[in-house]
């Protein structure tokens, strides 16, 4: 991690704790969503590792802001042009788009935060990314929310002008960056759910003592910790200078599995309290449930990693996972 990691973490923690109703604009004002983009291109400088810290810390507070989407859209745009103040978002598609004519006609579903964004960066396989103006008269945005209550709107384009972003990162690179950012987000929310659960079982009394004194409760808390240990290690592996091949799949699979177990145990240990709207647990668990399968499902990452493993054979697999040298 970079030298700024601790500073960034405490900056974000302070902002999150301040209860600021316009947190997103404060974050933008501080340039945080543009961490990890070169300053000459309108970014805030710093590395991807720094951005991961920002994403993870925000997620730890159960805060719903478009940091992953905006930062990735801006990162793509910054390779083709200098950034301005307009908010952008990004959508990853699994099949190619036909924009030969310089316009696009399509119905796009689950476009994150489209209602709040001015621009949409579209990344499809086998082509450079495209950008469309979401405020163009030919565009309709119908609001849809995911189970975390975050915008995943339907966007309809009717011969909407679409500009190719030459020189922008490849589809694969964007997908990988998103996968890493979502992994950090899941990890942050998982840590948040753990922290909340730990203090709940330490304070709430049943049978005359804190829940934490009950061995089965303590054992469940330990199982959450074990998942965090595993997921932290996976992110560390994926952010190595030279991560092993398959690191993206590995970190997605590991964080998704941790999200599943942690959300389940967190609710169990909170009892009925965890189900109320008023109590903050659901801000974390609903995000864990949504984000664990962002970009692609856990199942599909697992299948693609498994296919490559089967093709490589045991010695290929082993060579890859020990490729970092140590």
């Amino acid at each position, binding site marked *: 991690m970079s030298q700024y990691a601790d500073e960034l973490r405490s900056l974000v923690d302070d902002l999150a704790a301040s209860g600021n109703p316009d947190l997103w604009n404060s974050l933008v004002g501080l340039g945080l969503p543009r961490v990890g983009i070169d300053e000459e291109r309108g970014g805030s400088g710093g590395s991807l590792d720094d951005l991961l810290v920002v994403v993870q810390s925000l997620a730890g507070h159960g805060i719903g802001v478009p940091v992953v989407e905006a930062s990735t859209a801006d990162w793509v745009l910054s390779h083709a042009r200098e950034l301005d103040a307009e908010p952008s978002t990004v959508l990853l598609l699994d099949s190619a788009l036909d924009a030969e004519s310089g316009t696009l006609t399509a119905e796009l579903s689950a476009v994150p935060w489209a209602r709040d964004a001015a621009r949409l960066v579209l990344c499809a396989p086998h082509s450079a990314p495209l950008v469309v103006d979401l405020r163009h008269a030919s565009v309709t945005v119908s609001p849809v929310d995911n189970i975390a209550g975050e915008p995943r709107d339907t966007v309809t384009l009717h011969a909407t002008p679409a500009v190719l972003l030459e020189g922008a990162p490849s589809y694969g690179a964007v997908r990988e960056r998103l996968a890493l950012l979502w992994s950090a987000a899941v990890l942050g929310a998982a840590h948040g759910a753990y922290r909340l659960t730990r203090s709940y079982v330490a304070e709430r009394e049943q049978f005359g003592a804190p829940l934490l004194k009950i061995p089965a409760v303590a054992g469940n808390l*330990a199982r959450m*910790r074990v998942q965090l240990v595993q997921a932290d290690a996976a992110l*560390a592996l994926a952010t190595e200078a030279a991560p092993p091949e398959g690191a993206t799949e590995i970190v997605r699979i590991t964080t998704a599995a941790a999200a599943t177990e942690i959300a389940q145990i967190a609710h169990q240990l909170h009892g009925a309290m965890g189900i109320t709207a008023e109590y903050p647990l659901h801000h974390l668990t609903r995000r864990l449930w949504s984000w664990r399968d962002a970009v692609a499902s856990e199942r599909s990452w697992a299948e*693609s990693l*498994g296919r490559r493993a089967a093709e490589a054979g045991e010695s290929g697999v082993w060579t890859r996972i020990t490729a970092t040298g140590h």
Partner: protein
Amino acid sequence: MDQSPGTDSCVQLRAQVRQLTAEWRDAGRYAPRSDSWLRSFDLDFSKELAARGLIAMTYPVEFGGAGRTNVERLAVTEELLRAGAPVAAHWIGDRQIGPAILRHGTRALQEEIVPRIASGEAVFCLGMSEPEAGSDLASVRTSAEPVEGGWLVNGHKIWTTQAHHATHAYLLARTSREERKHDGLSEFIVDMDSEGVSVTPIVDLAGEHHFNEVRFENVFVPAHRLIGEAGKGWKQVVEQLSFERGGAERSLSSYPVLVELVAETAEQQDDRELHALLGTLTARLAVLRRLCYEVAGAMDAGRAPVQQAAALKYLGNAFEHDVIEALRRTDRCQDPAFDSVFGQALIASPAFSLRGGAAEVLLSLIARQEARS
């Protein structure tokens, strides 16, 4: 992320081990098997490793070690386990007794024992568990009473792996009765050929003999064979357990099954579920080895990462079990033969989450730490 200083040497060490194990395997000198670190005993192989500087790797050169890092040692142990090589003869001594003596033993004890572990001459067994003290290790009853020039040991140890081959035992005994059962414990090195030591086999469910009962009847142990301070053994044992728990052997006991699973999956092109299952296991394996690396790094930094090692053992043991269940998901395992890769691993599997600390106990150790934090 920082690259370990050992990167290049780790690559070389891996290559060296691969070559050696391939030679021995091809010459029919061993057959790869699950759980080889506990079951596969071959003193010649251990001596061969010793001659090449591949055991006692982290010990100082003056005691016959190689003065290398725990990270480098990990590269070697991983490759040995992956190859299912016969490493049981030196495993316990190399892994934890040498380091324990180096940390806490007197100079005389270090000079006496450590070089013999390094050369593969001293074969160790671990005398911790007793019939009345398994998970609750602090309730050991075996006693060591001070006598002229040393200690007199009486007691009964159980589940002692490879005691029938061992030249030496590590012994946890009570040297005084205190109010807190964690006080008054001490660690010793005992010669297995001392008068009063007797070993009786315990045959396991596979019909194999690897563990034993060991009885100590008025066994004299010279004073200098005490490790560290009398009565302060608990702290030392806990530290030692992170060496015992934090290694790759806690994830790779059923590795030969994974080898088969990879091959089987390649043949089942259309089985998407099986591919997904293999993918998940691959991800877990990669993360486990990352954790092993982190634990080894912590040891190199002079820390005994008790909680991390416990978490690693817990996760690793679950992985070892799940690999076996994954192969069962294919058709290879119907009515499994005793000596098949699957059969061997399955029969060995109940031990995975017991030896070195039962799974529930590891969880409660982790939980205690969480409650304090």
